[in-house]
């Protein structure tokens, strides 16, 4: 690898390994990093890996495409074994996938007890309001095990003691089962259970002082947690050359002018790229 591993790549490869054991992975409509991780997982495992549900057209496929920011229903249909209607998928398929399906959710906020929310919108009264049901979050919390969450920027506003508004808590067990949340952030990988949060690993590039400052529970810097494994060269090549050659993984880390520039580049490049996917 000539180019150094970016934090987006470190995260996406960690995330992809957490998806491999699922029978089915939902891409998510608005989550580029989740999409790249799912497609990387599927590419790596080939037809022994998880099926991919593409929400662009509610298709299921074992023939993973490359990642694209602009969701395309024609690309989603390439190689798919079935196309569903939205209500058919949500009401009849998804609900019966308990323990067999996984999906990474980008949280707006997650707390140390497992509470999660995902999106806020401005109301006409000028106040912020949280949306109760984005991505079928409450339903997914019941089905996906472990429940997988990512944060491109872990800080005191996103990983908190208590969320401002709780859409769901995947640790709430209605069937007596033990539940866990795995959180992959730009700094580390955490597990949250009823016993509380714990650090599974810290990324190689993470500064210990910054990590302590941006984590909502006490971090003992004397006890060094394990380091998140460095990506394998084969994974990096697959990610950069096959799964995400347009580099959509960076969009969730860019803001302001840099984000606009990246978005403009993707808008220029993607139409031809998507046609290639659709025609492959």
């Amino acid at each position, binding site marked *: 690898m000539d180019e150094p591993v970016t934090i987006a790549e470190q995260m996406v490869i960690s995330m992809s390994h957490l998806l491999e054991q699922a029978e089915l992975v939902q891409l998510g*409509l*608005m989550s*580029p990093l989740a999409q790249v991780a799912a497609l990387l997982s599927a590419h790596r495992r080939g037809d022994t890996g998880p099926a991919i549900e593409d*929400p*662009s*057209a*509610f298709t299921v496929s074992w023939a993973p495409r490359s990642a694209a*920011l*602009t*969701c*395309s*229903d*024609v690309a*989603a*249909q390439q190689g798919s074994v079935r*196309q*569903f*209607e*939205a*209500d058919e998928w*949500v*009401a009849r398929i998804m609900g019966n996938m308990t323990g067999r399906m996984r999906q990474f959710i980008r949280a707006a906020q997650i707390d140390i007890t497992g509470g999660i929310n995902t*999106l806020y*919108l*401005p*109301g*006409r*009264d*000028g106040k912020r*309001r*949280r*949306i*109760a*049901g*984005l*991505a*079928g*979050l*409450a*339903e997914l919390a*019941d089905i996906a095990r472990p429940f997988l969450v990512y944060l491109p920027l872990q800080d005191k506003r996103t990983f908190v003691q208590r969320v401002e*508004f*709780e*859409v*769901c808590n995947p640790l*709430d067990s*209605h069937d007596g089962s033990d539940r866990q949340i795995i959180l992959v952030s730009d700094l580390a990988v955490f597990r949250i259970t009823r016993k509380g949060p714990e650090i599974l690993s810290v990324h190689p590039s993470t500064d210990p002082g910054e990590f302590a400052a941006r984590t909502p529970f006490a971090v003992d810097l004397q006890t060094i947690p394990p380091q998140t494994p460095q990506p394998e060269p084969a994974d990096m090549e697959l990610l950069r050359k096959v799964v995400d050659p347009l580099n959509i993984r960076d*969009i969730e880390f860019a803001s302001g002018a840099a984000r606009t520039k990246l*978005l*403009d580049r993707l*808008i220029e490049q*993607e*139409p031809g790229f*998507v046609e290639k996917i659709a025609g492959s």
Partner: protein
Amino acid sequence: MADQQNKLIALDESLARIAQARQIALGGWSMSRKPCGMIRHIIAAGLRLPEVVILTAGVETDMLLAAGAVDRVRTFYFGLEAFGMGPGQRRGADMIEETESSLLFGLQAAAQGQPFHAVARHHCRALLTLRADLETITCPYGGDEYVALPPIAPDLAIIHAWRCDRRGNAEFGGTLAADRLLAAAARETIVTCEELVDDLAAIGGQADLIAPQTSAVVHLPNGAWPTGCEPRYRPDWKGLRDYAQLDPDAVPAWLDRHPLPTKG
């Protein structure tokens, strides 16, 4: 009595029907097959919709908000995906919040003529804190508590299709979304279409909506723009990006620069 063999109506007549509706469902999904053409005609006609029901509210709903042409939006998502919030959304919206399940099951209850759809209380915990209108019931068999989701029966659904014949047999093209459910739940369904054909079956088409489900047909080529309509055209990503960056007050001028879709 309506002509069963020819449900094609003029744009003005469709707008007159829309003006009578209190709750209007809009079809499509994400950036595909949104009935943006009819939305633009609604705005141009100066109509104000009391309530829009939509699964993933995007540019079509944003245009309505920017133009002050809608009072309330009932949805479980609102945004322009990678492009963030649109100008109408930034201005603020009155919303009736739903979850994927509550919206789909509410429509399903209406389609099946049920008084409510029962769903596990823990799936609606957040919704119960936001929606004072929702009631709970106790299961008469097991004793568990459920949320009784009320039926959502729109007065009118507007669905954009790839092609449709004069009888009202419509083939969507691309994503199916939940448009058959919208049509089943709504009291009336207007299909706008890219291609008007004499007989869908005769050209090898497969109806996603059959004629008895369609109340009226409006021929509106390019009627999904700037979203896409497979297999005719893809979403106009540059157009969507440009729209997302507009100031709310600049939306009417931007719309004026793009010709209104009209009968082909």
